[in-house]
């Protein structure tokens, strides 16, 4: 892994992440600007309906006279929060189970974890979210919880494979020979070497969570009292017909900026860790 990292040709591969980084900085820039800009609260309604772009409403207003910029900003934080939260929790779960499973490959903890992975991967995601949301009724985080429970599996599989591969390497064998405990070996020696795979997979979970949240809230399955891009888009389906595009445009462009920039960055990470996968 480290070898391939060093031998990679950096010159040609920095072009795309540069674009990705640029878009990501742009995205965060927009959010920070909107955050400090004096905007109306996202829930506040006003008689000023479908207002055009102005200093007061940088992205205009919607049918209820609500400020689209402030709604877009709130929705963006909402998405980021969900993305990070789900990636973090699902990542943590996936990494720990993957390490465990890889270390004990072929023995019972591995069997159990593999079984769990198989079970979770067989259940259709959207229906699982719905069922979990129902089972947990008033619990506000059921959507995020459902994502965590379903999104860890790929991470676990990848980490497991890495551990199995690394376990046979000399430096691990010698670490074990000098009596290092399995926990210490895993965290100090194996984990750092899985970092490229781990980072790529984390950002994949991040992207999947954000995309899923948009679709779920578009369908009306999202968190009821929050604003999200999916909800803005569902409102906009009414407005586009009468020539009001700002809801749709702002939600979909922000969504695209975030997903595209993260995808570009992920792709370059992936290319560096495995040159065959990415765009050369």
């Amino acid at each position, binding site marked *: 892994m480290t070898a391939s990292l060093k031998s990679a040709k950096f010159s040609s591969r920095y072009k795309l992440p540069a674009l990705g980084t640029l878009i990501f900085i742009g995205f965060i820039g927009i959010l920070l600007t909107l955050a400090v800009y004096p905007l109306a609260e996202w829930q506040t309604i006003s008689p000023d309906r479908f207002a055009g772009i102005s200093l007061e409403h940088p992205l205009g207003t919607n049918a209820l006279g609500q400020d689209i910029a402030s709604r877009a900003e709130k929705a963006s934080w909402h998405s980021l929060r969900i993305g990070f939260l789900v990636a973090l929790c699902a990542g943590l779960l996936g990494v720990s189970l993957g390490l465990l499973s890889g270390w004990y490959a072929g023995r019972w903890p591995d069997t159990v974890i593999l079984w769990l992975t*198989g079970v979770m991967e067989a*259940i259709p*995601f959207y229906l699982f979210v719905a069922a979990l949301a129902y089972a947990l009724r008033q619990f506000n985080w059921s959507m995020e919880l459902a994502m965590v429970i379903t999104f860890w599996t790929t991470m676990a599989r990848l980490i497991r494979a890495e551990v199995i591969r690394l376990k046979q390497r000399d430096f691990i064998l010698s670490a074990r020979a000098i009596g290092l405990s399995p926990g210490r070996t895993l965290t100090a020696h194996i984990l750092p070497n899985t970092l490229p795979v781990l980072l790529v997979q984390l950002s994949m979970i991040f992207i999947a969570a954000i995309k899923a949240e948009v679709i779920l809230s578009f369908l009306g399955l999202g968190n009821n009292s929050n604003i999200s891009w999916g909800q803005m888009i569902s409102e906009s389906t009414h407005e586009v017909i009468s020539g009001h595009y700002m809801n749709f445009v702002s939600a979909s462009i922000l969504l695209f900026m975030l997903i595209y920039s993260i995808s570009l960055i992920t792709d370059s990470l992936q290319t560096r860790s495995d040159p065959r996968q990415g765009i050369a």
Partner: protein
Amino acid sequence: MPIYLRKTLHSLSLLLGVTFISFLLMVYFGPDRSYAIAGKNPDTAQLEEIRQQLGYDQPFLNRYFTYIKDLASLNLGQSESNGKPVSQLLAETIPVSLMVLLPGFLVGNLLALLLAMVAAWYRHSWPDRLLTNLSLAGVSVSFLIIIILLSTWLCTPQGLNLFPSRGWRVDSLASWFTYATVPSLALIIVTVFFNLRFYRALLLDEMQQDYIRTARAYGAGPFSIMFKEALPNTLIPFLTRLLFSLPAILVSGSLLLESYFGIPGVGKVSFDAIFNADQPVLNAIVSLSAILVIVIAWLADFIYPYLDPRINLQAETP
């Protein structure tokens, strides 16, 4: 233990797990129907009687086994919303979903494979760059946005207004084109973007093999190399991806597509069931699609060695 037996046991244990989770979420913690049945102001004795009828007073394991038994005998119960037997509901909706999704899914995958061949052949030169960059941008666009843009463009008076914006009255090929074209196009676009880079990687992998290098060195053209040499060897992962994404497409993919276009397939029915907490319907769809995934995986294990002798079942388990 023979490997086939072990594989089968593994699949069975997965089935047990999936049904257990479905049971736990949708039956055990699912909606308590006794209040709905008792109507207003029931007394505790009445409720107790109904709970007994429904078997709520049974021990956990007994209820789970009853559940498995019902599932195995396809005794799926009736929809809470409209009283239709769930099996009938599925029999009506599955063909519709297949009609909406299958053509777009297959065309999208084949198109992705063809484009991947182009990209792989022109590796690192402009067609490859164009295609791979385009697909990266494409997967970043939400399926939802694609559907909205496409339907606004093709189905509304603001756009070309060529197709009805929603509905499903299909009884002939012509009516299929009327109602399924736009959903299929959306599906094709997503499928191409989603799969292009994966197929390209598969083909590149194959093209680095010695025999292809040799063939190229001897001056074999792109068609003969792609179709005669590279393709047959990538067929297995290609089919695997196709097969394994099928249940997900059928259930999750159709959810958005069908509810947006008002097509009465599995997705629309599950969408309604989600909102109505129509537990028998939801339960049947979740359990059956999960079982389908497991059965496909199990079948694949048996079929692949015949298709490709290089695949050894033993090799997969460390």
